[in-house]
């Protein structure tokens, strides 16, 4: 299966800017399906970015994060060609991991 994580990490020398788009329903447990039954909550809880063996950004999410979440941040200390590892886990034990090269 294709990765649920799409990432763009670009370095401008000093600072690396990271943009991530993750495919995930982020169901908050309040919505009903076509039959009028509640869709149980299903959302990403933890999202982690590692670069050169160090956490550079960690997100704890609740149900109020939009469907197919997007997040953008920047960090220092990386250069072009370095690996950025992204991983998430959700409240149902699902997870995904991907590694991106910083461009």
């Amino acid at each position, binding site marked *: 299966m294709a990765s649920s994580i799409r990432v763009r990490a670009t370095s401008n020398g000093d600072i690396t800017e990271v943009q991530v788009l993750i495919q995930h329903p982020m169901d*908050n447990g309040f919505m009903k399906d076509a039959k009028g039954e509640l869709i149980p909550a299903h959302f990403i809880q933890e999202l982690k970015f590692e670069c050169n063996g160090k*956490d550079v950004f960690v997100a704890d999410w609740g149900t*109020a994060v*939009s469907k197919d979440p997007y997040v*953008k941040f920047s*960090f220092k200390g990386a250069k072009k060609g370095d690996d950025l590892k992204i991983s998430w*886990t959700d409240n149902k034990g699902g997870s995904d991991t991907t590694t991106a090269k910083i461009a």
Partner: protein
Amino acid sequence: MTTTTGPGPLATRRLILQGAASVALIGLGNLPFAPVRAAANDKYPEEAFKQKSEADAIKALYGKTAEPSDKIKLDAPEIAENGGVVPISVTTTLDKVTSISFFVAENPSALAASYKIPDGTVPSVANRLKMAKTTNVTAIVEADGKLYSATKEVKVTVGGCGG
């Protein structure tokens, strides 16, 4: 810091942690649970995400209160056509930022997202949140052990929490 990413080991670790917490609670004779922990803590702040009001959520997450600061720039739309996807971003000129959190006051649970900002990461985050209705959005920045906040009202035309 563990580098485990698989669901199995992580879930197990959480179970063990929860188990340990409940054992500790029983041991204390069911004292009121006071989840006062720093946001820099490694664990997912389950309790803080369960709190309904913004004040309770801030207390559960950080264990202290915030003061307004003009060094935080909270970017949110004046009017959100679709409460399901509201782009919100925060940047700050404060020093020694360790975490940034987003609260939506009128949502079923106020805490929306909490980000740890390790040393070397720029204290600036953009993300998209759901909003139930017209309400205040608050960004809390933890810098040098203190809490600072910025608030902005967003008018929501169609809510993002069903119903």
